[in-house]
Every structure is written in structure tokens, then in C-alpha cells.
């Protein structure tokens, strides 16, 4: 039964206990129950509260982060950023939203009207639905599914189809290129995501998000300490899914203009932007839940509301995405695919094997967690470094002949210093 968590688990605190907003909801539901309303009413009410809460939170977060990203990237880029609308430019997102809302929406003549119209709406669905299984606090979860981790991945894969629909229906070649790139990219990185999250599940022995946070709380260990490689891979796969540099292949501005949403304008374009931000929050929330301890912070959640800790971690992690966008150039499509298949996938397979072995050792011998987890952490961090560097060495990315050669400085003209390019095995050197 999907809403059992409301009654099971730790006893409800008082409804005014803001350390967990689930208490207030629980109190409300109990009050409805006491009044003797129809039995389905609590379900509907709790579902509505969750949905409206997530929707409001994501929209306001997005508004704030549009401003924050612009200001932060501006600082990275030695600019000031928006500072005219309102104090510190805080009203800039509102102005932007008004502009986007009032702009004309153009439908290309040859567009597939149904899909063209439906995609901007559908694109919000996967981005928002992911939040249903993510615990904002101990009780603040809309539906703590048994298969939460798998659910997150499955919903992510729906995103592919929507993006393809948008790109295909626009009847624009840039859009189609962007759509095909997205499709190719996401099926590659879905595997990476699955393997990265699988390593976590092996440790926590549950796919329920609440249980994963509970595991990290019980052992006072964030998963990132024992699974650094998985987190690294997941960040990369997440960046691919939300189209941020260095992996914004699907909407590579300098190549295919805006990719799959080239033809969209006005609020339809705004929906894509909104969905991208919300998907970014979702990725950050998954990372926080799965790897960074969720709403717990080593006992601090007793004093500070857990949802504040969660949001703090989430926004802090989202900053990493902003930072990446501000600093890194973009990889090419085949390089990004190669990175998934040749680099991340073998490493993650090894990682999953190791995780399984470690859990087996731990459980078969009944070691104490305090002794065994630090040992695993040290071993896994060392192994992660060795694997990342070693595999890079094997694939030839670190060999000196592939490094840049500084230009030769000459004083006399007329000489020809050309050397044919050293062919790298499996590299992308064309025959000139």
C-alpha cells in the first residue's frame, strides 16, 4: 500500500514540529481521519499537498536559480550579471518570465502540430515525477516506492522520447540533429547511470530512497565515502541528461543553434528551460539522496529541519553544475559516447564487482561496520584513483605524444618545420 509510511515507521511528532514538514501533513491527515471522512480523502489530500508542494518549490527554485546562475556565471566571467531589475537584479527572472509569457509562439509550417504542441508539456513530466520518490525529509516523500532507484532511471529514459518528439516534430534539421544526438547519448548514459546507482544499491541492500538515506544515517557514512567512482560517473551521466556543458551536445549552441528546441519560442521554450532546470534539481537531489546522505547531517537534523539540510546540499551540488558550465568547453558527440562506452562502463563494471565483493566479505564474516567501512572507504578511494588514472593510461589519453607541443620560436623566415601528426591508436585523426 503506497501510503503506509504515514502510519508506520517512527511515531509522528507534533504537527507544529517544523523539523519535518511531514509532521504537519501527518497531523492534518490524522485530523481528517478523526473527523471520519471517506477513506480515500487522506490519500487525495496528501497526494495533492505533495504535488502542489513540489510544483511550487521547483518553480520558485528555478526562478531563483535563473538569477543565481546568471550572477554566478557572470562572476566567473568577470562580469556583473543582471543587476538592474530589483535589488541585486533579483527581479530579473520575473521580468524574464513575463517576457517569455508574452512572446509569440511560432509553429513552423511543416511541423508535426500535435507532437510539436505536446512536447513542451510532456517534457515537464519526467522532470517533476522524479521528485515523487525523493525524500526531502524523513516523512517528506510523496511515494517512497520499493523500487525508487529503478523508478528514477525509468523516468529518465522517458525524457529521451520527449526530447526526440520535440526535435523531430519541429521539422528543422538542427532540431533533428539535436534530437538524434540526445537519443544516442541518453541510451549510452542510461547504462552508466544504472551501474553507478547499482553500486549504491549493493551496499544499502534496498532500492527504496528512504532506506538508502536511512542506511547512511545508521552507519554515519555517506555513500560517496565508499563509492567515489560511482558518484563521479553519476555526476557525468547526470550532466549529460540535463544538457549542461561539457556535455550539452543536444543543444550545442555553437554547432546546432539550440538543438531540439531551436524552433520553440515564447512559453513553449520557457517550458523546456524550466524542465531543464527542474531536471537539474532532480539530478542534484538524486546525488544528494544517494551519495551525500540526503536530509541527514550527522545528527544536525535533530536541530535543523532536515528539509533545509537537503535543500542546502541540493543547491550546493547544483552549484557544481553551474561551475562546470562556466568553466568547461564541450566534448564532441563521438568523444562523449566513447567516454561512456570505453571509459566509464568498464570502470563501473569493476566497481560493481568490487562493491559486491566487499558487501559479501562484510556480511559473511559479520564484521563491525565501524571497522569495515573505513577500510572499504580507503580501499575504494585508492582504487578509484588507480582505476581512473590507469585506465586513462591504457586508453592512451595520458601519453606524452598526445600532449600539446608548444610552438617553436624561430628568428629566420623560410624554414618549414612541419611534422606529420602522430597517429594515435583509436584516435580521431583524419587523413588530411
Amino acid at each position, binding site marked *: *500500500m503506497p501510503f503506509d509510511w504515514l502510519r508506520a515507521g517512527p511515531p509522528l511528532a507534533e504537527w507544529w514540529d517544523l523539523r519535518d514538514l511531514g509532521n504537519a501533513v501527518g497531523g492534518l491527515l490524522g485530523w481528517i481521519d478523526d473527523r471520519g471522512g471517506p*477513506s*480515500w480523502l487522506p490519500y487525495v489530500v496528501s497526494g495533492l499537498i505533495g504535488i502542489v508542494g513540489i510544483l511550487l518549490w521547483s518553480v520558485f527554485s528555478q526562478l531563483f536559480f535563473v538569477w543565481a546562475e546568471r550572477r554566478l556565471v557572470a562572476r566567473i566571467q568577470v562580469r556583473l550579471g543582471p543587476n538592474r531589475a530589483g535589488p541585486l537584479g533579483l527581479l530579473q527572472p520575473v521580468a524574464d518570465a513575463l517576457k517569455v509569457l508574452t512572446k509569440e509562439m511560432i509553429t513552423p509550417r511543416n511541423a*508535426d502540430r*500535435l*507532437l510539436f504542441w505536446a512536447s513542451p508539456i510532456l517534457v515537464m513530466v519526467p522532470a517533476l515525477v522524479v521528485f515523487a520518490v525523493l525524500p526531502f525529509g524523513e516523512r517528506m516523500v510523496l511515494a517512497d*516506492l*520499493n*523500487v525508487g532507484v*529503478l*523508478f528514477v*532511471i*525509468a*523516468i*529518465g*529514459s*522517458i525524457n*529521451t*522520447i520527449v526530447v*526526440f*518528439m520535440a526535435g*523531430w516534430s519541429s521539422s528543422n534539421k538542427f532540431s533533428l540533429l539535436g534530437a*538524434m544526438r540526445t*537519443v544516442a547519448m*541518453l*541510451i549510452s548514459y*542510461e547504462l552508466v547511470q544504472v551501474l553507478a546507482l547499482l553500486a549504491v544499491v549493493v551496499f544499502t541492500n534496498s*532500492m527504496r530512497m528512504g532506506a538508502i538515506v536511512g542506511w547512511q544515517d545508521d552507519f554515519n557514512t555517506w555513500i560517496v565515502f565508499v563509492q567515489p567512482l560511482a558518484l563521479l560517473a553519476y555526476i557525468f551521466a547526470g550532466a549529460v541528461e540535463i544538457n549542461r556543458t561539457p556535455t550539452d551536445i543536444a543543444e550545442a549552441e555553437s554547432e546546432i543553434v539550440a538543438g531540439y528546441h531551436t524552433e520553440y519560442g515564447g512559453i513553449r521554450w520557457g517550458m523546456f528551460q524550466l524542465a531543464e532546470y527542474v531536471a537539474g534539481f532532480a539530478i542534484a537531489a538524486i546525488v544528494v539522496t544517494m551519495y551525500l546522505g540526503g536530509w541527514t547531517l550527522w545528527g544536525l537534523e535533530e536541530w535543523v529541519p532536515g528539509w533545509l539540510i537537503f535543500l542546502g546540499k541540493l543547491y550546493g551540488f547544483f552549484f557544481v553544475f553551474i561551475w562546470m558550465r562556466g568553466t568547461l568547453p564541450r566534448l564532441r558527440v563521438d568523444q562523449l559516447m566513447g567516454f561512456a562506452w570505453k571509459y566509464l562502463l568498464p570502470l563501473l563494471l569493476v566497481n560493481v564487482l568490487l562493491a559486491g565483493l566487499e558487501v559479501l566479505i562484510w556480511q559473511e564474516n559479520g564484521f563491525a561496520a565501524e571497522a569495515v567501512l573505513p577500510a572499504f572507504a580507503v580501499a575504494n578511494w585508492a582504487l578509484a584513483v588507480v582505476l581512473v588514472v590507469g585506465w586513462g593510461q591504457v586508453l592512451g589519453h595520458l601519453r606524452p605524444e598526445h600532449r600539446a607541443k608548444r610552438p617553436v620560436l624561430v628568428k629566420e623566415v623560410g624554414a618549414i618545420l612541419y611534422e606529420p601528426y602522430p597517429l594515435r591508436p583509436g584516435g580521431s585523426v583524419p587523413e588530411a
Partner: protein
Amino acid sequence: MDDSGSVVAFWTLAALTVGSALMVVAVRNLVHAVVYLILSFVGVAGIFVLLSADFLAVAQVLIYAGAIPVLIIFAIMLTPRAARDNAETSLGLPALPLVGALLATIISIAVVTDWPEATRGGFEETTSVIGEALLSTYVLPFEIASVLLLAAMLGAIILVRED
């Protein structure tokens, strides 16, 4: 949950599944057909949820609604433009009796079979049960399937290799 709720949900999902399955063969545009196919798969996933098979439902979304259409899309995009619509084909006539016979068989089985009623509630946890079953009782078919998939993958790679 109320029985009535389950019944309403079942019929809605069934209508969604069958209706979009019909649209898959009815629409002329192949990409539209793929979109309807996804809808149909999502409907099936919903029915799995009703049967409290949560793992199967999510796997259905992941594989059938997320991954299989991508393969179909690739197939459509890689074929020349001429074949991108669901054109009339001369194979329609021979297919008709075949489909009719199949339909008759299914209907007769559905009518004739004495369907047992479920006597217990839903499973508490399906994932670990499925996992254990796959790696103990059904380990042979599981391994055979994985070897088959590996062989198919290798075959595909060899087919498209240029050298």
C-alpha cells in the same frame, strides 16, 4: 484501496493500452505510431502497478517505454525517407486470416479457461523474490538468454564493421 477504484483504474488503463495499440497500426506516420506504442506500453506498466508488481512496472517503463522505442526510432531514422510512412502493402490480405485466427484463439481461450480468483493480497517486496528466482530456479534460461543477447550484439557489430 477501494475495489471500485481498482476497477476504474483497470478499465482506464486497459482502454489506453488497447486503444493506443490500435492506433499504432492505424496511423500512417511511423513516428506517431512509435508514440502510440509508448503510450500502450505505459498502459501495460499501469496494469502491472495494479497487480502490485512494482518491479515489473518500473522495468516495463524502463525497457519498453524508454529503450525499445529508441531502437525503433533509430530504425526509422536509418531507413530512407520513402519508407517512413505506413504505406498500403500487398501483405495485408494474407495477414487478415492469420490475425483473425489468432484473435479467435485468444478469445476462445479467454472464454473457455476457468480463471482462478486471487486469494491473497499483493506482494510486500517483489524485487528480491524475482532476483532470487532468476539466479536459482531459472538460472539456466537466464544464462541462455544472456548468452543469446551477447551473440546477437557481437553479430550486429560484425555486420556493420567496415574493413
